[in-house]
């Protein structure tokens, strides 16, 4: 009966839908000063920690350990800055109503947005490549180790982002989203921090201590930072990401 207006929309596959969400989200980082601020601060602090605190030159070793060992602590407050806006911003501007009534599934939105945020932090990470060049020029580092450490750093950022994205969905207040995420990431790290583990080791059975340490992102990050790709470590990060993303899709 209707001639012109029977549904003329093409149908997209799940992958195409995710791509549409991803593209908008990824571009949005560069439409605000966020990208510039984040990139500059990340690169500046990464360099500062490496050379001033990590003692990059003083160690006289051609590796990037001083560079990578501070990444978890940088991510604790930089990742929430990226993730806090993922959903809280959509709620604040009301666009959440728009995207939820466009022909997307919730999972498309969750995955697309997460991947965009992850791609953004990965861009930041990739921009630290002069470090790799420097250390290669000064000495003869193990490139395999460095590559795995980069991978570990990206996975860690991804895990934190998944946590942050989840928390961002709970509130429309970005400050709350930021603080919650920072605290959650901090706890995730702290569970594997030697000082904390030593404290517990005094009274808790060994199984509990090891269990706690294995839930910590730090434990898995450090083992990968040494250049060992342990399937369990990769699985850990994949699980953290999946757990928080699935939670949010509900």
């Amino acid at each position, binding site marked *: *009966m*209707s*001639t*012109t*207006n*029977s*549904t*003329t*929309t*093409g*149908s*997209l596959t799940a992958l*195409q*839908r995710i791509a*549409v969400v991803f*593209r*908008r989200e990824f571009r*949005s980082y560069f*439409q*605000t000063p966020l990208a510039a601020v984040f990139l500059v601060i990340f690169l500046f602090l990464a360099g500062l920690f490496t050379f001033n605190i990590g003692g990059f030159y003083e160690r006289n070793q051609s590796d990037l350990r001083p560079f990578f060992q501070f990444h978890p602590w940088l991510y604790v407050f930089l990742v929430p800055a990226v993730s806090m806006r993922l959903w809280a911003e959509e709620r604040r*501007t*009301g*666009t959440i*109503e*728009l*995207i*939820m*009534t*466009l*022909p*997307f*599934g919730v999972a498309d939105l969750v995955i697309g947005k997460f991947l965009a945020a992850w791609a953004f932090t990965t861009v930041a990470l990739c921009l630290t490549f002069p470090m790799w060049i420097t250390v290669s020029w000064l000495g003869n580092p193990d490139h395999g180790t460095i590559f795995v450490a980069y991978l570990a750093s990206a996975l860690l950022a991804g895990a934190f982002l998944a946590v942050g994205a989840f928390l961002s969905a709970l509130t429309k207040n970005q400050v709350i989203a930021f603080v919650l995420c920072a605290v959650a990431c901090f706890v995730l790290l702290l569970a594997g921090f030697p000082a904390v583990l030593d404290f517990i080791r005094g009274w808790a059975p060994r199984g509990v201590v090891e269990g706690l340490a294995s839930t910590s992102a730090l434990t898995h990050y450090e083992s990968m930072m040494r250049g060992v790709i342990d399937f369990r470590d990769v699985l850990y990060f994949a699980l953290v990401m999946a757990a928080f993303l699935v939670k949010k899709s509900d």
Partner: protein
Amino acid sequence: MQSCAATDRVRTRYDPPHSAGPGETDSPAFLAARSMETNMAAVPKIVAEKLEKRFGHIHAVRGIDLEVPAGQVLGFLGPNGAGKSTTMRMITGFLEPSGGRVKLDGIDIAEDPIAAKRTFGYLPEGAPAYPDMTVEEFLAFIAYARGFSGKDAKDRVERAIGRVNLQGVRKQAFETLSKGYKRRTGLAQALLHDPGILILDEPTDGLDPNQKFEVRELIKELGGDRAIVLSTHILEEVEAVCTRAVVINKGTIVFDGTPAEMESRAPRDATKNRMDAAFRAMTTGDVAADAERGAGSRAKGGRR
């Protein structure tokens, strides 16, 4: 009770020229008209059945039934907080109903949300859009989301921009636009894929008289073979563009009929602004109870 009455009204609206009054719904003429309608297999564009929404202990929407066929422009009226936006949000799948179901173009939105969401264009309350995107970028995003690509997407964006006169601001960031242009961007977004169903939450809110006129003309023009639901607080707008008026109060339908019928419900002593008087009568105090009783009596002999 009166939710049944509401559906009945819709049914009865199909059999011109006379409209079935109370008790008439069993008449042969009515039944004939109804069976004819079923034979034509005219699936109503929008079907909402027994919609309920509770927010904690607040019962915001209490059993709303609506059927909107193609060609109808439905003015959705009610005081603030009556449940208009909530109902529209449930129809568009943004909110999950606490009870009841919604079908769009015959597709149940709970069963196949993505397919159902392709059938309509929606202007949410306040016409939200991404503040940092330009009008063009925003509409391009909508086009991609609607499954258009390349030249197709470009053409769609051009048409949408032309349709609501956004040419002058196409390169401007959304947040820098005036209220009127924001609203028009929202309309352009809803129209982009030329949907058979349009759901517009206060499309003329915040527009100046000229812009209101333009938007009304556009809606009239779109009417034709689409099903349109628009909420508004401006009752003259209902007279100007709508073929049907539905008034809800406290989450239930208290009136469902033509704008002329609505006007006739105004108290006898009202001489000016009779629509407003009728609206007040339906949505405040005892008179509202009267209206409800009226609706209830019509429900006698209803199909459920």
